[in-house]
């Protein structure tokens, strides 16, 4: 394993310091914790948003702390859910008196640790609601009772709920905006090469030179299926077909799309997927409001990508399009 590290045990701690060093106007680390919170907290009376999970998904989640998105991000060890005390510190940092929404990705560890923190915070008198994102269509929710995983679509949920909170919505309203986003977002990914968790030192799986893993999560896990490699267009067609079916899209749907790199796949190649995604939407008669192209929810240096579609109504379209100012996502007018 060759990585840009000092001691393996220190990587998360040092990376958090690094984010703070690079984005001091956005991020501040809550002392003694793995929590990044806004340097300039939102005003009192607005709902706070907390997300997080294992590290290794950067820019998630610290990269989304800022205006229009999160108020605090809680980082666990690489690919390991943060602990309840850490999440509790995040909740405390995010609370501006109007309650806090937890945006949890559907992994057993995340769900349990965030729920425990929720219980602790509630017994402290903080109102806390939670939503669980499960956008990954590769996992069949009806067969496996853990349900679908939360993957890249989570960032659309941050965006939608964050915009609602910034606009002054109540905790219940923000939670409902997040639920609406979750109900309309679907994703699926593939890997051409695995990643190496620093503490493990070895790739999480091995693939032959003509194989790929389809239906991967974001923790270096193998996918739901191993297949021969396919062209970019075939991959996009297949995944977009699955997403479209699961969303029961009818021609004329209004969409937001995300082409998300898993870590090592060059933007040049991701753009080839973006091309087909745009074409596919046109051919299917859909209206593509926005397309996000880049690395939003990664799996260390895994090679591969995920595609996300969100079906928009007027409300979701406005939330996804609202201004945001965070290290990893900035949109809105910056000049006249």
């Amino acid at each position, binding site marked *: 394993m060759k990585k840009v590290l000092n001691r393996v045990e220190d990587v998360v701690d040092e990376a958090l310091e690094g984010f703070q060093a690079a984005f001091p106007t956005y991020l501040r680390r809550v002392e003694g914790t793995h929590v990044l919170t806004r340097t300039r907290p939102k005003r009192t009376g607005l709902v706070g948003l907390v997300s997080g999970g294992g590290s290794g998904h950067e820019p998630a989640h610290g990269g989304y702390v800022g205006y229009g998105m999160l108020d605090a991000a809680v980082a666990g060890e690489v690919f390991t859910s943060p602990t309840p005390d850490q999440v509790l510190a995040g909740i405390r940092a995010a609370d501006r008196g109007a309650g806090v929404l937890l945006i949890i990705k559907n992994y057993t*560890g995340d769900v349990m640790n965030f729920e425990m923190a929720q219980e602790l915070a509630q017994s402290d008198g903080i109102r806390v609601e939670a939503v669980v994102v499960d956008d990954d269509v590769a996992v069949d929710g009806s067969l496996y009772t853990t349900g679908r995983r939360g993957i890249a679509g989570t960032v659309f949920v941050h965006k939608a709920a964050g915009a609602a909170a910034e606009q002054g919505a109540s905790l219940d309203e923000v939670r409902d905006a997040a639920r609406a986003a979750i109900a309309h977002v679907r994703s699926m990914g593939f890997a051409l090469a695995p990643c190496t968790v620093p503490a493990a030192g070895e790739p999480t799986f091995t693939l032959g030179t003509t194989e790929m893993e389809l239906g991967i999560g974001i923790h*270096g896990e193998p996918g739901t299926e191993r297949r021969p490699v396919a062209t970019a267009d075939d991959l996009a067609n297949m995944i977009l077909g699955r997403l479209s079916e699961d969303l029961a899209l009818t021609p004329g749907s209004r969409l937001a799309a995300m082409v998300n790199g898993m870590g090592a796949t060059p933007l040049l190649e991701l753009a080839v997927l973006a091309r087909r995604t745009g074409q596919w939407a046109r051919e299917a008669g859909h209206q593509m409001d926005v397309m996000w192209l880049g690395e939003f929810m990664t799996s260390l240096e895994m090679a591969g990508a995920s595609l996300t579609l969100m079906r928009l109504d007027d409300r979701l379209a406005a939330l996804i399009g609202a201004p945001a100012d965070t290290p990893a996502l900035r949109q809105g007018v910056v000049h006249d």
Partner: protein
Amino acid sequence: MTSEQFRRIWFRFGELVTEHRDELNRLDAAIGDADHGTNLARGLAKVAADLGADGSPTHLAASCRQVGMALLSTVGGASGALWGSALLRAAGALPEAETCDTATAVAAARQAVDAIQSRGHAELGDKTMVDVWRPALALLEASVAEGMSGRKAAVAVAERAVTLADETAPLVARRGRASYLGARSAGHVDPGSVSTALFWRAVADIVATS
């Protein structure tokens, strides 16, 4: 059970997990995210440090709560929440005293297993640590009810736990990360079950020699 035994169980469990860390990670790599050994080893190092610290509580309930908090705040992942919940709940069944009788210790174990299931919603056969905990507890309770000594019962449970862990191999996971693999999860032993068996071995090692 004495408070001293309780602490030594955790030191011993820490040793065993450290010894088997790479193996646990490898098992987790096959159907999860390759960190189960690392997670537990990190947590048990904290447990050992806390239990060994000056002024650390000597009563069973407080000691058990301390272990639960340490696990909860350092293990992370699914197993951290489960082990943390288990120990915090078990602490409620233990006395604020240096020792307790076998029946009390067994009752605490039942609380631990109940907590794991109410936190994680796993049932028998879901290919999780519950597949070891639940039958191990049943054997423990039956053995003690039959009048077996705590010492002998612990050894029997530890032996049975190894088999139970092995028997998770053919199962298709329905809870935890492994469930995402669907049918591909069959053919691999569940890492959390193996570490649970290590816990029972630690119990047996300590109880049998003291």
